[in-house]
């Protein structure tokens, strides 16, 4: 499904300073003698000012990971560092969080799939709650809450109750509330999964704007590739409690055989018969405008069939991908493939029986 136009211009907020770092993060759940390893040595590096997406099948450990970042879930081993502070060192024993950990948490915003707004409080009062916890005075709380409501485009809903809002509006309140403590980091666990596509888009746009305007680092969990495609600078793929692929989206797209890249940008098409070579060609930037296929055909005098092709915008960049079929086996096509690589294109020789596109996240959709 193509994104209807680029959401944002190139981003400039990303720096090389790490903001969220996990090392060897492990979480084992024990219940009635059974052990479930939800996280199995996760090393995550989120840089300042980036939007980082974590995707993976249901049960891959995504929620566990994000809940370990602010220690809502206590990791079994490994460390979590947020904005230079080792949170795992602050964790006391038992379920109670000590004063220092609570203070650190107040500087990490969190947005939830089901919004988690207090129905007994007005919108404004919900946004004031984190400030109450921080001990901010009443006047200042009100000022801040109204400012945040303005920021998320809900200035006229201050006195409404959450029950009177639509899903998208509730999530805007959730985001405003998460921003009340002036966090550097925003965690979002499937914050758009309960919303329809149009509302999802507007919430993602809001997150992107906040990221750009406030330099906010966003770590988000999702099972929708669309979300990653739309706003993420970097992404990680989780499987069975491990991060199996990670990097900036451009890096991933340029990685031959990257599962995430293939999911971000699937092209289909079955070969028309045996003894054919199927090649996936990815175009970035300028290469997209070169007539490479006709050049290839003329230069080597071969017939090329196009099995599938798509242009798309990934993270504000035009990317094209094409699946073509060359006659003959791979060995006979080494030279034409070399020609394509020389043109600066990324060329993946596809497995003739590739895994069906979408298999990666099929279980993720609820």
């Amino acid at each position, binding site marked *: 499904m193509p994104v209807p136009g680029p959401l944002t211009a190139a981003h400039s907020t990303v720096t090389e300073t790490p903001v969220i770092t996990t090392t060897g993060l492990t979480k084992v759940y024990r219940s009635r003698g059974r052990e479930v390893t939800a996280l199995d040595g996760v090393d995550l590096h989120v840089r300042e000012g980036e939007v980082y997406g974590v995707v993976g099948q249901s049960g891959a450990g995504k929620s566990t990971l994000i809940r370990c970042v602010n220690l809502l879930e206590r990791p079994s081993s490994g460390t979590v560092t947020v904005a230079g502070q080792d949170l795992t060192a602050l964790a006391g024993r038992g379920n109670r969080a000590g004063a220092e950990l609570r203070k650190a948490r107040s500087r990490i915003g969190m947005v939830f799939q*089901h919004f988690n707004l207090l129905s007994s409080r007005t919108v404004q009062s919900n946004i004031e709650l984190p400030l109450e916890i921080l001990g901010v005075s009443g006047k200042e709380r009100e000022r801040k809450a109204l400012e945040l409501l303005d920021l998320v485009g809900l200035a006229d809903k201050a006195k409404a109750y959450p029950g009177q809002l639509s899903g998208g509006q509730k999530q805007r309140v959730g985001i405003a509330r998460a921003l009340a403590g002036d966090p550097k980091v925003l965690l979002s666990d499937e914050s758009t999964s309960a919303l329809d596509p149009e509302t999802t888009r507007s919430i993602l746009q809001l997150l992107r704007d906040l990221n750009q305007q406030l330099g906010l680092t966003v770590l988000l969990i999702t099972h929708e590739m669309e979300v990653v495609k739309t706003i993420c600078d970097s992404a990680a793929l989780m499987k069975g409690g491990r991060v199996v692929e990670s990097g900036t989206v451009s890096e991933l797209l340029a990685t031959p055989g990257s599962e995430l890249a293939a999911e971000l940008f699937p092209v289909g098409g079955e070969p028309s018969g045996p003894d054919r070579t199927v090649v996936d060609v990815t175009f970035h930037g300028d290469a997209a405008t070169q007539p490479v296929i006709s050049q290839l055909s003329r230069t080597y005098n071969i017939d090329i069939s196009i099995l599938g092709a798509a242009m798309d915008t990934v993270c504000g960049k035009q990317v094209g991908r094409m699946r073509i079929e060359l006659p003959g086996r791979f060995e006979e096509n080494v030279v034409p493939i070399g020609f394509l690589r020389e043109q600066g294109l990324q060329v993946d020789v596809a497995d003739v029986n590739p895994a069906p596109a979408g298999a990666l996240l099929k279980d993720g959709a609820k």
Partner: protein
Amino acid sequence: MTWAEMQPLLRDASLDTLFMVWWSTLYTILGGLPLGILLVLTDRGGLLQNTVVNKAVGVVVNLGRSLPFIVLMVWLIPFSRFVVGTSIGPSAAVVALAIGAIPFFARLVETALREVDHGLVEAVQSMGGGTWTVIFKVLLPQALPSVIAGLTTTVIALIGYSAMAGAVGGGGLGNLAIVYGYQRSETGLMNITIVLLIVIVTAVQLAGDLAVRTLARRGGRQAAPVGLRRLWTPARPAPKPAATVPAQAEAPEAVKSS
């Protein structure tokens, strides 16, 4: 028996009943609310998870609930005498009533608090809230309608118990009905007593329902008076949703997820 004879008896008995119900309700809240909170917090996965405390409180509460009230009352006579210096009369009854109702109310509070979405607790924890914040800003406000409903049930049970307490010398309307209505066959007085009890119970129930409905309506979907409010305060700048954030007009909000 004439109305003039009955009137002072009825007035005193009603006041005694109200006295017993009022004070025992107060002590029931003071005792039952913390116990209910404790039961929830110390449970598995709770903020103050503590199996020993949870089991101990649970056993005491169950014990209190499984004893028939009349047995509890008789059993508590020495204790009542120790606390208020007498084992008969409304004051003594208050002790037994409160002790009988505390476990009952504690369970109702526990149930009410369990209904609160755990996501809300997590949200507050993620903001840096501690246990007290969770109790006073999340659990109690969110469960308030259910707690009030539980309290209504408890008060009505207390009215019933207070009449029963009358049977063992507690005073009040129950005592009146037994002493005059049963032992002296004053059917008229007995009927009036019954009507009075019905009136009191109904009044409590109506008041409780009203409170629950008012509280529940807060979170409901009724139209907020924001339109009017904006007319009255023209000084505030008009909301500009698209000023800082180019918020896409949300779809006609066909999908309303709760």
